[in-house]
């Protein structure tokens, strides 16, 4: 069923065209990398602020309000470009364990971001950042680095992508 869906995606004429010419394949890669830098970068800044190693004189809420919209815009671009690249060779990604690991780690990282975004206002009003806030921020940093490692391991270990 899922494999059937993968085959259907891959044979879709739009998907085939966008992955088929080298300039559009390169454009997808550029969008995927650059949006990843903005997404992970803005999240790391907020995490580092929650951990207290960056700009303690600025309040975390103000920083988070500035950066979170960009994190979500770039996540949308990142997901879109990533999905189009996935769709181009969907049947090779189907059954690719490292790719599933990448998706799982990325999903956990996004969940950690959502927690930080929801809670940062509350944490900011406390006299000091609570320990569990720092734990979530630290986990978020580790998960993003893990997502990047998993991302480069997909072609390195499985030859796909």
């Amino acid at each position, binding site marked *: 069923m899922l494999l059937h869906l993968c085959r259907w995606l891959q044979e879709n004429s739009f998907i085939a065209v966008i992955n088929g010419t*080298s300039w559009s394949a*390169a454009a997808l*890669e*550029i969008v995927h*990398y*650059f949006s*990843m*830098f*903005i*997404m*992970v*970068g*803005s*999240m*790391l*800044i907020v995490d*580092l602020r929650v951990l207290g190693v*960056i*700009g303690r*004189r*600025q309040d975390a809420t*103000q*920083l988070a*309000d*500035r*950066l979170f*919209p*960009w994190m979500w815009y770039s996540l949308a671009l990142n997901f879109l470009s990533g999905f189009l690249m996935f769709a181009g060779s969907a049947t090779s990604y189907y059954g690719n364990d490292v790719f599933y690991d990448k998706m799982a780690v990325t999903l956990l990282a996004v969940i950690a971001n959502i927690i930080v975004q929801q809670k940062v206002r509350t944490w900011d009003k406390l006299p000091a950042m609570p320990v569990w806030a720092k734990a979530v921020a630290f986990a978020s940093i580790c998960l*993003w*680095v893990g997502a*990047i*490692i998993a*991302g*480069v*391991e997909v072609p*390195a*270990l499985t030859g796909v992508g």
Partner: protein
Amino acid sequence: MDGSSVNSGANFAVGFGHWLQNQPFALSIAGSDWAYPFVQATHFTGLSLFVGTNIAVDLSLIGIGKKSAAPFQISEMLLVWNWIGFAVAVTGGFLLFSVSAETYLTNMAFLTKLGLLIPLALVLHIVIQRKAPEWETAPETPSVAKIAGCAELLLWLCVATAAVLIPYVG
């Protein structure tokens, strides 16, 4: 420059590349199953921090994003981590380069990226970093600040484009 000196320059570069990629550290990265992807991941993590902090400052100069009542000095707070990201990215990038230095030194996309786009982007980056505290506290962001922020964003996008094109032209 006449033809022969161009040639000797190219020969020197190829010779250097050959020497570098045969150094023990480069050979051990190339020969290991796990080292190369980890070096790649290091490069990308450093870049995320570097480009992320750059774009945060640029976007705030351009004036996109939530407005706050008080002047918001984002550049100052990000300065240290911006350069930490840069150092990590350069370290990872140098190691990636050293694995197949000879090929990179004859790749036009790589030469454009390293010889032209990165120096330009870095010069503009340092100018912005020096000027930002003044620009950010001004009651109205000067238009030169907006143009500089926009130009820097586009330049780093060009750097990423050149990087992606390396395997396509090589």
